[in-house]
């Protein structure tokens, strides 16, 4: 096993003797690379964002630049990987195009969040499937003029376009970056004014080369161990031998525990690069999602194949988080407020659990047993999430939160319905945030199945649904609002689909 090292802005830096929980952020700052900042230490503000070279999820080139939160991942997890920071992209006298646009348009005021924005913007700039939607770039904002390139909201489709620039820039790429100074408009204008990388751009050229391979890593210190097994059998053996092992993938949950609650684990086992956990297969009976695929990878590889997930995933945390977070992790932590479980419950998903003893399949509905508790044994890994086909034709995901981008749901409701000849044939409703575990709204489902899809029936079922679960008062919402939202969700779902499409037309 080689000495752990990370390539930073083209230079290979030995990781050195470190504590296994040392974050990539603190390690970079100790190197003197102070561009990445700590703003929140829990992956919410993006001031720490960096780029890493990863296997491309889609497209013809093997590598892509992906922005992630450096505050959440341990540097040990980057052994053998390539990191790019704002310092590596350009210098004050030789600005990168992303840096230039942000600087000249007033996109930085205090500047503290700026290097993180630069990394998120640059990753989107280099996204291979980013294509201009029109020939003209965004209008340049006149510094003292009256119009700042605002999109006319009265034009058809303007709502959707407000989040996508004429250059194909997806504003969701910046959903994990907070700025307290600018109000975002100049940052958006900078993002929407970007062209494509010039032909001799070295960072663009990097995409044509193979990505850095995952490297088996073992780092130990007094405060604990970090272990990246080479393959699944090694990982499963390790889990069998070491019951204290804590499994991580993107560390988007564990990193918060480390930083905010001071948690330290004696042994951290990283499974995010295990090939056995990273396949996505589609056949007539199932869609099988590898538990260690990132949510961004699933989003792009599925490309709308599961409409309910296509609606849920953009609302799940931020792009920076989705670039690290996995379904395995979201189900493994067993949080009652994760956004994936309600959707997967509505889809009647099953989990494939693997251990040294073999594999077994558990319906997700039977998986959760209590607050952050599940039937998964300590030595078992979630290997795949299996979504049965055919999918329900009518699906919708309703997330109730204070903020539209990157917030935690106070209530999440997922619907997967089939309505034929005006009669509800299938009604699966997954709920998050209203009980100690994600649950199905079984009473409301029963009140709907076999009944006409009518306003009257829906009103009655909505009253039943408002009684589901045991919602609590907390800082996100009152119990009364949560209960109210359960009922409202069904009414809204019906209002959006009063007359479902005829058979055979996909929803």
């Amino acid at each position, binding site marked *: 096993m080689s000495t752990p090292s990370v390539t930073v802005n083209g230079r290979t830096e030995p990781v050195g003797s470190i*504590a296994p929980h040392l974050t990539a952020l603190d390690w970079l700052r*100790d190197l*003197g690379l*102070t561009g990445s*900042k*700590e*703003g*929140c230490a*829990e992956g*919410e*503000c993006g001031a720490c964002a960096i780029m890493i070279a990863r296997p491309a999820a889609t497209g013809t080139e093997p590598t892509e630049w992906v922005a992630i939160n450096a505050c959440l991942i341990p540097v040990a997890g980057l052994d053998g990987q390539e990191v790019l920071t704002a*310092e590596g992209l*350009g*210098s*004050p006298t030789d*600005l990168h195009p992303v*840096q*230039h646009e942000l*600087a000249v348009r*007033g996109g*930085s*005021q*205090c*500047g*503290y*969040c700026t290097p993180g924005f*630069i990394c998120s913007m640059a990753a989107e700039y280099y996204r291979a499937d980013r294509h201009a939607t029109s020939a003209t770039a965004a209008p340049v904002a006149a*510094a*003292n003029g009256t119009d*700042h390139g*605002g*999109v*006319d*909201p*009265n034009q058809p489709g303007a*709502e959707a376009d*407000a989040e996508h620039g004429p250059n194909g820039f997806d504003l969701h790429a910046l959903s994990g970056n*907070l700025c*307290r*100074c600018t*109000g975002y*408009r*100049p940052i958006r204008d900078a993002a929407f004014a970007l062209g494509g990388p010039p032909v001799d751009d070295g960072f663009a050229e990097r995409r044509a080369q193979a990505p850095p391979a995952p490297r088996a890593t073992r780092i130990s210190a007094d405060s604990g161990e970090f272990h990246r097994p080479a393959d699944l059998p090694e990982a499963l053996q390790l889990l069998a031998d070491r019951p204290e092992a804590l499994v991580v993938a993107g560390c988007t949950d564990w990193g918060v525990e480390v930083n905010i609650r*001071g948690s330290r684990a004696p042994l951290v086992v990283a499974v995010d690069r295990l090939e056995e956990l990273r396949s996505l297969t589609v056949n007539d009976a199932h869609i099988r999602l590898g538990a260690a695929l990132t949510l961004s990878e699933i989003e792009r590889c599925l490309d709308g194949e599961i409409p309910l997930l296509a609606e849920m995933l953009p609302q799940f945390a931020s792009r920076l988080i989705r670039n690290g977070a996995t379904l395995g992790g979201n189900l493994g932590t067993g949080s009652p407020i994760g956004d994936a479980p309600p959707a997967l419950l509505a889809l009647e998903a099953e989990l494939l659990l693997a251990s040294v003893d073999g594999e077994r399949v558990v319906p997700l509905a039977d998986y959760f047993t209590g607050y952050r508790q599940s039937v998964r044994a300590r030595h078992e890994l979630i290997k795949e999430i299996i979504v049965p086909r055919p999918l329900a034709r009518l699906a919708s995901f309703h997330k*109730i939160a*204070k*903020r*539209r*981008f*990157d917030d*935690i749901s106070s209530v999440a409701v997922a619907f997967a319905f089939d309505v034929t000849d005006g009669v509800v044939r299938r009604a699966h409703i997954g709920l998050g945030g209203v009980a100690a575990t994600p649950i199905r709204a079984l009473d409301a489902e029963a009140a709907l199945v076999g009944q006409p899809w009518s306003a009257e029936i829906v009103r009655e079922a909505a009253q039943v649904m408002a009684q589901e679960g045991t919602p609590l008062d907390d*800082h*996100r919402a*009152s119990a009364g*609002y949560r209960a*109210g939202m359960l009922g*409202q*969700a069904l009414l*809204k779902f019906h*209002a959006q689909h009063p007359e479902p499409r005829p058979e055979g037309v996909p929803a």
Partner: protein
Amino acid sequence: MSHLSERPEVGEIGRSIAHESAALHVTGKALYTDDLVARTRDVLHAWPVQAPHARAAITSLDVAGAYEVPGVVRVLTAADVPGVNDAGVKHDEPLFPDEVRFFGHAVCWVLAETLEAARLGGLAVEVTYDPLPSLITVKEAIEAHAFQGAQPTVERGDVSTGLEGAAQVFSGELEFAGQEHFYLETHCALAYVDEGGQVFVQSSTQHPSETQEIVAHVLGLRSHEVTVQCLRMGGAFGGKEMQPHGFAAIAALGSILTGRPVRLRLNRTQDLTMTGKRHGFHADWRVGFDDEGRIHALEATLTSDGGWSLDLSEPVLARALCHIDNAYWVPNIRVTGRIAQTNKTSQTAFRGFGGPQGMIVIEDILGRCAPLLGLDADELRGRNFYGPDQTTPYGQPVRHPERIRAVWDQVLEAGDVARRRGEIADFNAAHPDTKRALALTPVKFGISFNLTAFNQAGALVHVYKDGSVLINHGGTEMGQGLHTKMLQVAATTLGLPLSAVRLAPTRTDKVPNTSATAASSGADLNGGAVKNACEQIRERLLQVAAGGLGVAAADVRIADGKVTALGRGGVALSWGELVRTAYFQRVQLSAAGYYRTEGLHWDSSVMHGSPFKYFAYGAAAAEVEVDGFTGAYTTRRVDIVHDVGDSLSPLIDIGQIEGGFVQGAGWLTLEDLRWDESDGPTRGRLATQAASTYKLPSFSEMPTDFRVTLLERAHEEGSVYGSKAVGEPPLMLAFSVREALRQAAAAFGPEGTSVDLASPATPEAVWWALSEARRGHETGHLLEGKPGVKPEAADQDAPPRLPESEVARLARPHLLTEA
């Protein structure tokens, strides 16, 4: 035109340029205080031991366990303080307390080789507490009559007669939340004893002079033994005006005791749980209107939630009382203010500094009363605008009142408001479950520190023999573009291109006795001082040039680095040649500049005078869309016309307007501070103590269509190059969003529905409001004759309010603080 406001034909002033550090920001090369740690040797890291009670006596403190933790070097306690054990200027903020006054109060600090060791050391400190009864909400404090500081009243005319003579009288109550600054850079200080033996503190502070004073008094030193430098801040918004001092003092104390550099950087949760926020307020009011909807009389009592110590609560309250009128003429008025003392963080300055808290009351009143008066809210607001020859309730003439109408009308026109209102009505008629609304609100905001003494500034300008220029001034850079503007002022005054001028970081040994960079006054005050210093040098150089060229000094021109004489044609001298000549003629090439705002007077004992140099005006129109199922909403379009005088730097000013607006909208709609108000074991704990639970605006809250225009032909007589301050006023334009949400919620009910809207107007709050509107109820407002709210008078026992002259006479060195 005054000398100060006169603009030369050529110069860097008024050009749209990027922030002077933009290229450093985008490449990660701009250094903030904590970035210096990587380049400093042998640094110790500080970690606080925070109390888990809202209020408790500390019965024992045993730090021995901490020393068992490898890497722990020192634990700082009250016994270590050689000077005054206080972090503030009011002597009510013990740096090391013997009684815990809020949940998270730091009891002692651990210094260690690593942050991890300091954290573990903190866990090993044993503290025993004797919990005491606590007050968490403003209402609890009001009930317990727990107030701190003076209870001022602004009064004009006769309120009682005014209310009696009014055609309609309404009364109501409003409680609104505070706001966390959430500067992206948390509080940070790095202190060491330098090679000259002085204490040197790098601090993220808006007020280096006061940080210096507090560090000196904690250490028992004189100010000339302490230097504070602020490189730049990663945002501040008022949160680093008073709050940095104690942290700087801890770091400085540690460095003196250990002989090593000490870094104190709060993590986000520590920052959220330990530092002050915008004051939430409770207000009750009675208002009388005449038959035409004109305000006849207003009586109100505003009670701010001051937290555990006074901090800046008194001046914040004063500004709130001075802004309850906003842009409206109120002939008879009596407004009383009180500061509740609660067991929470000590609330402090935050962009607007009480102005927003005063204005929200009148805007809430007008928004709630308009439907009851049968008037459009726009119409009601417009009828009450200040007119010519009227004065504010505290006696200051309202100069340029026509600008209120000017910005208002321009927003109506630029925003195409009449046509869009028609579209909105059609949309609402066709959409039972979705409603839109468009609302306008104005802003009139007074510029200057209320307290006259703070309205002064200094600068230091050097011209070196090679012609290069270095400027220092007393203001700090927190992202607002002050340094950019100061470079433009210096270059313009000296007649140089921007590239010839460089600006050095703010430090107390360059410019002493500075006021906080606050109250939006940074460019006004420091610009005056920089200009003054540059003018002194320029005058000397003109004499030198005149002598050399054989012309009168009045006929010499310096522009863009070239020196010419009138009537001579062509360039006579370069700047460099002129500077060299001056040096050899033994002409001084540096100058200390000074500025004080003229014409201000204020008597705080009677809350009367003309405390403000001028008023900044603006108006905004916001359109929102509300989902009736959930209360969720989007801001579809915002149009703003704002008065910045003749802009010093348009790109910077527009950035301030947009950023201030979105921050204000965050306060009013999204940002939701929640404290544990239960009687459980964590009573008083801030529940929203992380970025995951305290949500500030993200891209999804940016208005989809955002249009900002600067008011033209807005020259401001007697201010630096005719400009106006811009930092705070635009925040209050965000009332337009709140009023639009109120009107959208009302649209779910029958015509004429008056809506009470909680603040912040979160989706949940909007849903409750629209659900109430759907039931068709009139809520909240009680017509006179029914049991209504009677605003309370000031406490008889409240401490006296000192007239300003008396304050000055007391000459307590640390008494004067304000923004």
